[in-house]
């Protein structure tokens, strides 16, 4: 199956006159049509920046895609003119943001916020676009009659449903979901995830699901990419990565999680802190925190090694063979 999204060697910097934040550092990633890719990592790993790059929206405030290619259905996103890019946004690629409380315009009815997307991309007359807005609301489990209500009249979970309705209104081919349920309570999160996965299946949407919650990835994704300091350090199917995590960072993440099924007295956290993105370490970015780092790790940046689609960026796995596990 052809990849719907293919990112190669993406580098994104945010620079001010004083310093340069190296948010994304040579990230490569691809997503097959109709699949769900989980992008996991901690704060500052560059997950959101990656998603915004796909929409060519990192320019605010001083962000810039330095190099790399982003192919969406084989088309180079970076070569598109701004008005062509606007055609893609919302119609072919949609994005959901983390905080439903602030993602909706407080002065515009939710119906209109859905309808304007439809009008923009499908040129429907007002009445039809409003009807479509009502349908979309029903689809996410909100009565169509509420399309005249304003965002503040909805609870957090309902708002996120509205946000999802906006994103899916033009039946996009690709959905970038940035922590879509992080701001919600567990039981509401379960409702929203359930509804989302049904809709994704129904529409056949390909999804990049950005999250820090490994549980959500395990239950909702086909593939996983673990990000650290602007790189994908491990990539594979959910079975591969969860069944046989290889990169020391991924292993560390699992060790940090309190486990619901097993009794354990102590967690085994990763020591140290995320590196400062304005001052990244030499060699492997993870080496200062890595329990298995060698001199080579501190000097030389590792490249990807692959085995059956399971990709790891670590010197321990160089040459396609495990060296020491």
């Amino acid at each position, binding site marked *: 199956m052809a990849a719907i999204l293919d990112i190669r060697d993406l580098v994104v910097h945010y620079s001010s006159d004083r310093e340069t934040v190296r948010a994304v550092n040579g990230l490569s990633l691809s997503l097959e049509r109709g699949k769900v890719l989980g992008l996991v990592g901690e704060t500052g790993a560059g997950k959101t920046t990656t998603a915004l790059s796909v929409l060519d929206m990192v320019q605010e405030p001083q962000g810039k895609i330095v190099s790399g290619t982003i192919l969406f259905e084989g088309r180079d996103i970076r070569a598109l003119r701004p008005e062509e890019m606007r055609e893609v*946004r*919302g119609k072919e690629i*949609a994005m959901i*943001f983390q905080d439903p409380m*602030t993602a909706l315009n407080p002065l515009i009815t939710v119906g209109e916020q859905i309808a304007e*997307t439809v009008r923009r991309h499908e040129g429907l007359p007002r009445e039809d676009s409003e009807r479509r807005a009502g349908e979309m609301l029903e689809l996410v489990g909100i009565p169509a009659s509420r399309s005249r209500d*304003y965002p503040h009249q909805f609870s957090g979970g309902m708002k996120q449903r509205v946000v999802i309705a906006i994103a899916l209104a033009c039946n996009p081919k690709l959905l970038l979901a940035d922590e879509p349920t992080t701001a919600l309570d567990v039981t509401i999160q379960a409702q929203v995830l359930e509804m989302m996965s049904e809709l994704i299946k129904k529409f056949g949407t390909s999804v990049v699901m950005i999250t820090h919650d490994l549980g959500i990835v395990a239950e909702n994704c086909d593939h996983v990419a673990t990000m650290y300091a602007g790189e994908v350090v491990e990539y594979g199917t959910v079975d591969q990565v969860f069944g046989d995590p290889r990169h020391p960072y991924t292993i560390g993440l699992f060790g940090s999680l309190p486990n619901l099924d097993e009794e354990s007295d102590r967690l085994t956290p990763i020591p140290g802190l995320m590196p400062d993105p304005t001052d990244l370490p030499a060699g492997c970015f993870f080496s200062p925190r890595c329990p298995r780092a060698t001199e080579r790790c501190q000097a030389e940046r590792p490249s990807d090694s692959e085995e059956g689609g399971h990709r790891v960026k670590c010197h321990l796995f160089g040459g396609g063979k495990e060296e020491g596990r």
Partner: protein
Amino acid sequence: MLKYAARRVLMLVPVLLGVTFIVFSLMYLTPSDPAQIVLGSNATPAAYAQMRADMGLDRPFLAQYLHFLFGYKHPEFGYRGLAFGDLGRSYVTNRIVFELILSSFPNTVILAIGALALALAVGVPVGVISATRPYSTVDMAFTVLALLGASMPVFWFAMVLIYFFANRLGMLPAMANPSNALSLALPIVTLSMNSMAIIMRMTRSSMLEVMRQDYIRTARVKGLGERLVVRKHALRNALIPVITVAGLQFGHLLGGAVLTEKIFSYPGIGSIMVDAIYQKDTPQILGSVCFVAIIFTLVNLFVDIMYGLIDPRIKTAVQSGRKKAPGKELADALKRLFRK
């Protein structure tokens, strides 16, 4: 909504009591003698004492204040008191205070509306332009201009305008009166300068704030064009605090155009109040100040209601009787920032 408005109007009562009390106390402290003013300097001591007694001036302070509120009987000066809507007669001209207010206030309204309209017409677009390219040369230039506007003494700016446009170029009259539209140009420009600067700065910072919001990002992600994003999604949100400020400005323009009116010899309520203070004309001062305070409060009320029409969050909040509406806090903050 109606209940809310009614409650706000009722709140006027304690405010007015306070206002009259403060102004009355200040007038009481003023070293001047109303009896003297009424009688002139040639009165006999006996007539003078009689007049003091008639006017209640020999009574203690509180009794005098109550007189003022609830009236007193006097063959010539007797009146029913402020509480019954009677503002009395001027000591100096013996004219009915309310008549003088009614004849001058519309003149002030004309000036204030003109000034506010000009301030909005220039301030809002300039503020938006500044905000869409922050820290550019254009923005910096506008910023300095706005600060300059806020730093200029009104009376000096007026005199400079008069010097150039009236004296040197002879294009416009130096004195203004409401029957001559052309003569209003200079006072309107003078009066609007300060408000213009404030509205421009407010629009700019409010736009910048709104453009950072998540929902603007959402609108862009939908593929909307930048102009639509600014006009439909940003501007409406950004204008909410601007409207508050504009309303407050209007309130101040109605009550505080004192200097402008004096310089252009314009017969507005500001001139009347200043003259009254100079002449120690207590009924005239108290009457006009109370009138202005009522207008000021009503304008504020009107702004709050306008606000609700624009911001659905507040409409529901007001309807459900919540005391602290979201945005009220903001409005308060702005009030305190921009009172002049």
